[in-house]
């Protein structure tokens, strides 16, 4: 009996050691960047608690590193990390209620982000159910919260994603929505107009009357569907990176 207990104990210790080797240590990373040990310890506690609750921990680590990079006070960093921890927990519950059991980390992260941008748990559940699959759900939540951040009403943002999926759109189409809407807004269209276009399933085309004639050709190429533009004119890779001109001081 004593021998069996000793073997079991050794096995557990070995397993825990193996498990700990794969876990990123936010404490060490914060200290390496000059953060006080007290902050690093507190953040590590939050991350460890999240790990026990089966929540994704990368967003928590990122938030702590972000706060420290911006030289926010340790108290403020800790508050931000704890708030995110709470949102991740709420997001996990909402995702589980929508039928994802267990919810993938990417969906939980995207749902927490959506909740942080003012979307409700009901919005989150609805989007997940409409997305049919965790990959679509993560992309849909991400895009809906980005559209909300652009100033679109939450209902419109959620509906835009759902509509795109219902119209046979792919995850790639959904992921393109934020940059398309940003372009339309930059071209001078109002949010209601852009929202209407998305809900009608025609967000990617502009009529000549809607854009300045001098930029019409450029806009058409930028905003046309992937199938409408010549190969190499857009898309990923070095041949066509994003070249949105950023202006500043």
């Amino acid at each position, binding site marked *: 009996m004593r021998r069996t207990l000793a073997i079991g104990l050794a096995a557990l210790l070995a397993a825990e050691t193996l498990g700990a080797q794969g876990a990123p240590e936010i404490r060490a990373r914060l200290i390496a960047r000059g953060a006080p040990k007290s902050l690093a310890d507190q953040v590590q506690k939050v991350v460890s608690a999240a790990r026990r609750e089966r929540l994704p921990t990368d967003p928590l680590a990122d938030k702590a590193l972000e706060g420290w990079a911006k030289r926010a006070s340790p108290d403020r960093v800790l508050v931000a990390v704890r708030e995110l921890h709470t949102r991740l927990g709420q997001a996990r519950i909402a995702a589980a209620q929508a039928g994802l059991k267990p919810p993938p980390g*990417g969906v939980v992260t995207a749902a927490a982000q959506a909740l942080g941008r003012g979307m409700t748990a009901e919005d989150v559940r609805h989007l997940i159910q409409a997305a049919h699959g*965790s990959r679509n759900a993560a992309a849909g939540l991400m895009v809906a919260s980005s559209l909300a951040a652009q100033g679109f009403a939450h209902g419109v943002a959620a509906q835009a994603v759902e509509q795109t999926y219902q119209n046979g759109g792919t995850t*790639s189409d959904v992921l393109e929505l934020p940059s398309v809407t*940003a372009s339309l807004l930059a071209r001078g269209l109002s949010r209601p107009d852009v929202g209407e276009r998305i809900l009608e399933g025609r967000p990617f085309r502009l009529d000549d009357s809607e854009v300045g004639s001098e930029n019409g050709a450029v806009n058409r190429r930028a905003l046309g569907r992937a199938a409408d533009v010549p190969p190499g004119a*857009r898309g990923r*890779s070095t041949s066509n990176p994003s070249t949105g001109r*950023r202006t500043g001081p």
Partner: protein
Amino acid sequence: MSSRNEWSHETQAYFDGERAAAEPPPRERPGADRLLRGVTAYAASIHAPGAELDDRIMARVRERGRARAHPSMWRWLVAPQSVRVRPVVLALAASLVFLVWWRDRTAELPSAPQLAATPTVLVRFELLAPRASSVTLAGSFNEWGTEGMPLTPSATPGLWAVTVPLPVGEHEYLFLVDGAKWMADPSAQAQVDDGFGRTNSVIVVGPRGVVRS
């Protein structure tokens, strides 16, 4: 005080209780009687041990037995042992190791979903900052590191630029100007509260890239 050797044999026999057999010599008799009376009085003053002594002794014995239990286990643990293990027990232990390891692996949920078959897209960032002496890009894609992604001056005066590979998905970022001033991207797709009193710029990268604005 007299030493024992000063008593005669008869007196010593008297002390031993052999009074009938021996009588001390007259000169020793008073001293011997005095000594015997003193010894008898002293013996009478001593409390005879009762049954509680046995109880106390046994309690101490049991206590010592308990105290030695741990050292005994420790000795067993540190001493070389010949361990015989049933293969089924070994298999169960190995299964336990795997299960705990697997549980920890799955508990560490990846936060970035795999959204595309080709997960990385090259994205160009630009900032017009004529008076800046250095500009770097920091964001959720590089753990907000402030040194790894410097922008370089482009052909257009005052324009800084860098092209970086980004995973498909949403990213928050800022520019760090002259190593001290955080600046949002004025032409970003969106700006969001960062939780630290500033705003972060947002970019959503699709598998087909980012639409020009």
